[in-house]
């Protein structure tokens, strides 16, 4: 708790990006007592308030749903839905990053649910939900690892592609795909052992509400895993300028820098949604080997694992 305060007070000192060396240590969130006392009002806190205001403005302007979705984002994804499974297409970075994300998920969930990490199907018997499943890039490997997977996405085309692809392999054909939102599932009263929302929250209009829904979908003492991109200068340089304009890995406009969340903001939002972030890790791309690696560097892409109280 003292560390968190220190970091947040450091942010108060300068509005420029804090050197990331402050929170390189992977387990700085793994405190035995997570003091849930109200965090001091800080610039980070204020930022969240402004984010929420912006978000509610956006959703008011779309004048449609009460969900945390962003219509423009949906349209963006709908346009390239056919290319989900083309490993050299617009989703190439996700394909490359997938094994690294799965390594983190496998290790944290095996530990959380006390499963044997050397088993070929450690998630047998676990009910997982992949929120924002897209074409099923994450759902299928999870199903192969033995989990009972439900994949939801707000874009209908994505769900259709995911269904067709999953049906091609008997090991993944049991995945349940639905075109729906997290909020609707909460209304239906569904719960899961672990909830995963990878690379979704930066496309969502109302992150706080989204996290509330995710939390409601998780059973008590269940696990929640989110991944997103940090709102840092380095992330602007790599995830937007480099990835969208120079290397052209992603279509221009895929990401909006202002919708990125910093790790502390994400932690705070999750905290308010009764989820304790226990571990965080970053993904680093090695251009020479062309592979992504897990690292302590959370300045660009990062993934967070938390437990529901």
């Amino acid at each position: 708790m003292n560390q968190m305060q220190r970091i947040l007070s450091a942010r108060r000192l300068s509005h420029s990006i804090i050197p990331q060396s402050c929170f390189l240590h992977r387990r700085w969130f793994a405190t035995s007592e997570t003091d849930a006392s109200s965090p001091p009002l800080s610039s980070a806190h204020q930022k969240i308030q402004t984010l929420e205001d912006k978000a509610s403005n956006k959703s008011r302007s779309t004048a449609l749903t009460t969900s945390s979705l962003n219509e423009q984002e949906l349209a963006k994804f709908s346009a390239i839905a056919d290319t989900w499974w083309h490993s050299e297409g617009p989703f190439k970075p996700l394909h490359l990053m997938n094994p690294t994300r799965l390594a983190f998920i496998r290790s944290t969930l095996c530990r959380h649910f006390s499963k044997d990490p050397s088993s070929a199907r450690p998630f047998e018997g676990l009910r997982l939900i992949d929120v924002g499943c897209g074409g099923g890039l994450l759902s299928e490997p999870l199903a192969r690892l033995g989990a009972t997977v439900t994949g939801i996405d707000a874009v209908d085309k994505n769900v259709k592609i995911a269904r067709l692809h999953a049906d091609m392999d008997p090991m993944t054909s049991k995945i349940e795909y639905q075109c729906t939102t997290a909020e609707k599932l909460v209304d239906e009263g569904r719960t899961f052992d672990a909830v995963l929302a990878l690379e979704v929250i930066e496309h969502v209009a109302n992150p706080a509400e989204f996290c509330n829904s995710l939390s409601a979908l998780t059973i008590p003492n269940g696990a929640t895993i989110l991944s997103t991109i940090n709102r840092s200068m380095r992330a602007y340089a790599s995830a937007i300028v480099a990835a969208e304009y120079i290397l052209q890995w992603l279509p221009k406009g895929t990401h909006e820098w202002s919708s990125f969340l910093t790790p502390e903001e994400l932690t705070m939002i999750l905290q308010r949604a009764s989820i304790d972030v226990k571990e965080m890790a970053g993904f680093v791309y090695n251009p020479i080997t062309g592979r992504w690696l897990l690292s302590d560097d959370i300045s660009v892409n990062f993934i967070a694992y938390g437990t529901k109280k």
Partner: protein
Amino acid sequence: MNRVLARKLRTNVCGSKHIFQRACSTHVTRKVSSTAGSNETNANSTGDSPQHDIAIVGGGMVGIALAASLASKPLTKHLNVAIIDNNPLLGRKNIIEKGHLPDPRVSTVTPATISFLKDIGAWKYIEEQRHAYFDKMQVWDYTGLGYTRYNAKDVDQDILGCVVENKVLQSSQLSCVQESDLQKTIYPARLNSMDMLPSSSLTGLGEVPSTADLFMRGRLAKLELSDGNNVYAKLVVGADGSKSRVRELAGIKTTGWNYSQNAIICTVEHTVENFTAWQRFLPNGPIALLPVGDKFSNIVWTMDPTEASDRKSMSEDDFIKAVNDALDYGYGPHPETTSSGGSSLSWLTGDVNISAKERFETPPKVVKLSSERMMFPLSLRHAKDYVSNRVALVGDSAHTVHPLAGQGVNLGFADASALSRAIAEGIALGTDIGEANLLKRYEAERKPANIAMMAVLDGIQKMYAVNFGPLNAFRAAAFHGAHYISPLKKRIISYASGEQSLPLFS
């Protein structure tokens, strides 16, 4: 869904009668209950053609090594593997009787390979059969200008390597596979053709897609065998040697050239036991004498094709004389042992170099030829890619090298180990094992190492093929350098032992 776990061993139960009954079309189907229990991972019984996770084409040392390596890992031991090899004796009970004469087809396994074999649990079977550790090596040539002696103690090891017959290597690994939980099916047939379609765009499919459907969607590869069977698999591994059919069918191009040399191999006997590996570079190629155990040694003699056919057909006595000559005073004098024994340079090298003090020795005399002489041509071949859509190449199908340093099969074992590791990682992360990215990771690990080794071996072969007086000084320099400069010697031993995979930068 009913899962029927059947191990179809299409080899007959009775031993020798098999050979005569091959013509009959009856085959024995044995359902062996697997102690692995209900195996939810592989839904391979869609009722029609058999569907496997991995089809290993070629049941030689490296193909079986891959199967044994998969069988020894917890993540991969529940896979369903098909082994396709034309040899009808594959899979039969170990028929090597003790006390038989050593087969001339032997391989030198390096310490790195020995630890791999220990990891998969095959080494204990090999130790029950004839095998020969050696801890000393001597290399010299016909000019008599220098020699190099290597000793395992130079690198604080006990052995430099071990010589084992190929069929012992193969059968011990097969025993490991048979005792494991790995579901395997052996198809004693040849591969006729192979097909895999690119992952296609998705159109409507039925409730449970049949094997043929999955093949049409690019999820499986289809192999057509010479006995008419069709086998489907997610990944096809080509372990079928330097004239690989899998490589040909996958359209993978190769580069390489034929050495204008043939090698004669045979087993010989001495009056005393041999504990050293000997190699002498003659004008037309090296002759190597490797201990095999029990006073037997193996000869690998590389020479011109004309000489090779002469020597193959000459009488046994003449051949023995020729061998003794080649190892002794034939073609040139013995190198001198420098009396200082390297002490003049010890201030330079600094540390202990035991073998530098060793005198030059003559190899033990050959008294008897104990096997037929086999001859085969030598070449260098390298596949441009090791992997392709749902295909991976291991062993000689990916790279064929000159036997002068005994490295060939060791590279193959390293390939098998790397591929099984890549597959295990893929399974750990829920990937489809035929996926290109996974296979490329295997290629990225092995290709640089294999290419480096091939370059070194080819360089040595070319260097010692030049017999031009003034240039012999370089040979002498090479021998002396390797003999006296102990950091260089340590590096050479360490590289040849497989402890480091790249010659320069590990």
